[in-house]
């Protein structure tokens, strides 16, 4: 494999504590090595006056699977006039809020993202999710199967059977080649099977005689019993509802006193996702306001929690979530086309296009909340930038969010540009936050932090010798940032991107389809005859497919797997 040495760049690496010092980064055989370990044949990349970081790690995006593809199928207008023609060995790609798989891989790579997690995989559709990931070039990917409305989980946890829950989770992760335990509106999506919902963590799930609180607590315990690389990853009840911050705090408190148990260096036991959608005050959309401070005060104090932001980007986009009842609620509000996919015994999902208009106060306040969360985070290693792609906006807007976080002027300009500027400013504290994030903090929020939260800090998120050679050079001189637009421009099109030692982007253009891997977690537990009998019975009686036809087998679904072994026997 090729050798490279990236010379004289300003390196930002939270793993080694390098804060913009001039340093060289050497690459050999797909790994970062000491600069003395490459030969004289190593290709030299001159990074003088440029920013060097590890490849960024996406902790939460909807980029593969049935609901993402439903979005593509039912939004031809999202592709209109967006297509980039085919070039060389690259595949053609199109779409704005729901790009094709090829475009997804290329666009992430161009911004310097080299690892991405698909945020919600319905287990019954795992083959579909894997087929799409296989066709998403360059980036390493994993997918989180959803567990929060799963009949097995609810039946075990009703009786507090943690060991059986853990054994089932391990079985499902293996069958679906999944990465982590995801919960979406726990209990609420099962209730949606009857057109109902669970709005608080104490609303009982119809028929199953269990509350969301019990499901969440039980899955935290099962996750720690297994010692999985990631913690539970939760989208709580009552997403997107005025006043929901109390439900968010109730949810977070369920993690109180629980310590992380794993061999991957992960410290949190709960990851709260797209926090922006869960930090709302007010009683209705008329007196809607930010409660980012209340949520962040709690998060800052409790070190066993990580979060991501879910920043609104002020675009026309496509919302999609396993929170079926929420999407129905949304289509009743905006009357745009609604798709829904309920999945037997497991989960559901819905989609509705949405326009975050700068002329609508609620959208502008949502924009403010997302930025407040990030700016209020005391520990950027526990707060990550996302747009919950494509829900709050498409992932291609990350560079714009970085600009907003790094420049008070850019934020103030946008606040003033809103149609109802005064109302928007009054509804959050954003206008008074003059903090400007540093490139080091950006590296924590987009690289080292998410990698650690995912239990992958030995591979990703840093530039320490021995780690994967995912390296990015941005044409941004940290000593000379003038116009905030320079930040957005530099982060949009990286000068160089290396993915596991292969140069995949050069001068903002994709030059190589890379060597993509699929990450999954193989957790071994003691044989559990009870759980295997239960699985067998559910397939015989209630599933519409045979158990023998359920598993995603490696041969064509996961052609280049990277299994993370967990021994929980």
């Amino acid at each position, binding site marked *: 494999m090729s050798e490279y040495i990236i010379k004289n760049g300003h390196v930002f690496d939270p793993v080694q504590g390098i804060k913009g010092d001039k340093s060289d980064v050497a690459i050999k055989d797909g790994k970062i090595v000491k600069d003395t370990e490459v030969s004289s044949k190593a290709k030299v990349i001159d990074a003088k006056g440029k920013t060097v970081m590890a490849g960024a790690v996406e902790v939460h995006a909807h980029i593969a699977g049935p609901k993402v593809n439903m979005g593509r199928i*039912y*939004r*031809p*207008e*999202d592709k*209109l006039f967006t297509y980039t023609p085919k070039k060389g060995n690259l595949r053609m790609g199109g779409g704005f809020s729901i790009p094709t798989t090829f475009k997804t891989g290329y666009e992430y790579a161009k911004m310097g993202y080299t690892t991405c997690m698909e945020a919600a995989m319905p287990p019954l559709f795992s083959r579909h999710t894997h087929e799409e990931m296989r066709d998403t070039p360059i980036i390493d990917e994993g997918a989180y199967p959803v567990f929060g409305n799963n009949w097995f989980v609810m039946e075990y946890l009703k009786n507090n059977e943690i060991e059986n829950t853990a054994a089932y989770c391990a079985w499902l992760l293996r069958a679906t080649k999944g990465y982590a335990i995801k919960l979406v509106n726990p209990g609420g999506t099962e209730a949606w099977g009857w057109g109902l919902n669970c709005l608080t963590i104490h609303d009982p799930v119809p028929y199953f005689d269990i509350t969301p609180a019990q499901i969440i607590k039980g899955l935290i315990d099962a996750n720690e019993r297994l010692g999985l690389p990631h913690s539970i990853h939760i989208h709580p009840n009552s997403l997107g509802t005025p006043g929901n911050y109390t439900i968010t705090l109730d949810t977070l408190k369920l993690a109180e006193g629980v310590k992380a148990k794993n061999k991957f260096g992960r410290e949190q036991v709960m990851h709260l996702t797209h926090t922006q959608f869960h930090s709302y005050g007010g009683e209705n959309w008329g007196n809607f306001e930010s409660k980012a401070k209340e949520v962040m005060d709690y998060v800052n104090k409790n070190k066993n929690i990580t979060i991501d932001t879910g920043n609104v980007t002020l675009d026309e986009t496509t919302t999609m979530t396993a929170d079926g009842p929420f999407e129905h609620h949304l289509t009743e509000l905006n*009357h*745009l*086309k609604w798709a829904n996919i309920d999945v037997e015994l497991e989960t559901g999902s819905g989609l509705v296009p949405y326009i975050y208009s700068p002329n609508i106060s609620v959208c502008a306040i949502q924009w403010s909340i997302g930025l407040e969360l990030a700016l209020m985070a005391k520990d950027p290693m526990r707060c990550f930038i996302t747009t919950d792609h494509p829900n709050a906006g498409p992932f291609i807007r990350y560079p714009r969010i970085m600009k907003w976080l790094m420049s008070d002027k850019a934020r103030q300009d946008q606040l003033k540009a809103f149609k109802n500027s005064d109302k928007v400013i009054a509804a959050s504290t954003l206008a008074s936050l003059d903090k400007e994030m540093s490139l080091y903090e950006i590296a924590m929020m987009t690289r080292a932090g998410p990698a650690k939260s995912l239990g992958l800090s030995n591979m990703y998120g840093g530039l320490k010798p021995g780690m994967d050679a995912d390296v990015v050079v941005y044409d941004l001189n940290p000593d000379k940032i003038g116009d905030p637009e320079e930040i957005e421009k530099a982060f949009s099109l990286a000068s160089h991107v290396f993915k596991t030692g292969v140069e995949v982007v050069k001068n903002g253009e994709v030059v190589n389809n890379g060597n993509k891997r699929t990450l999954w977690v193989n957790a071994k537990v003691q044989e559990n005859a009870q759980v295997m009998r239960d699985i067998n019975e559910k397939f015989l009686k209630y599933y519409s497919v045979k158990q023998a036809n359920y598993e995603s087998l490696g041969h064509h679904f996961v052609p280049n797997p990277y299994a993370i072994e967990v021994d929980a026997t």
Partner: protein
Amino acid sequence: MKSVTLNLKQQPDLFLEVECLTPDTFAGKKLAEIEKLPVYQGKEDKTLGEYFSVAGESGATAADTQIVVNGDCSKVKYIGAKMTAGEVIVNSTTDMYTGAWMKGGRIVVNGDVHSFCGLGMEGGEFIIEGNAGNFLGASYRGDWRGMQGGLIRVKGNVGSDIGSFMRGGEMIIGGNADIHIATHAEGGRIVIKGNVNRRIGGQMVKGEVIVFGTVNVMMPGFKYVRDVELNVDGTTAQFNEFIGDLGERHPKRKGETVYGKLFLRK
């Protein structure tokens, strides 16, 4: 206003796509540059000059540019698509997407147009001296924003699915229409001087449809409310007024429910 004249000199084997044929693209260009503009036949890249002889002079801006097209353009797509100003006069029948996504200016087609013409139109004036095909002034697939502004006037008959998802603007049809008029409309006005086959205003939320002739089958979701006298395009007449689609949701304004309106000449 300066004028460029195009004469079709060679028929394409298949069909020709000419997105460049707008005052916006021609403006400020010399004839030699206009001749080199790209056109496509399937995957073949060709130039405008290979199919048309080009004469005259273009204006400095789109608004100051007129394009006159002669010769049989019945296999030419995208004439005047996305134009924002100026004028295009086609002395022929044209194919699909004529005047699609038009934002301003004026197109006159002295012949028929095929389907998907005036798609998603936002402004300007589009005159069709002959007949029009299906999806006139409709939305692109999946878009909930159909015709939003401007005027489409057709002397002859139109096909089906005209004004789907219409949100604004006006369409005046001199002849007859087939099925599906103003389906899903949320605004705008369609006038049909002739007869309509059926399915007017299905799933209509807001907007107006006025029919001078007969309707074969009415939608069950439309209810007669009263008789009114209207002056429509210079003609004053008595109409039966219907509201609908009563199966659909309807917004409220100042406490009053807003319906789609259908006027049938008595």
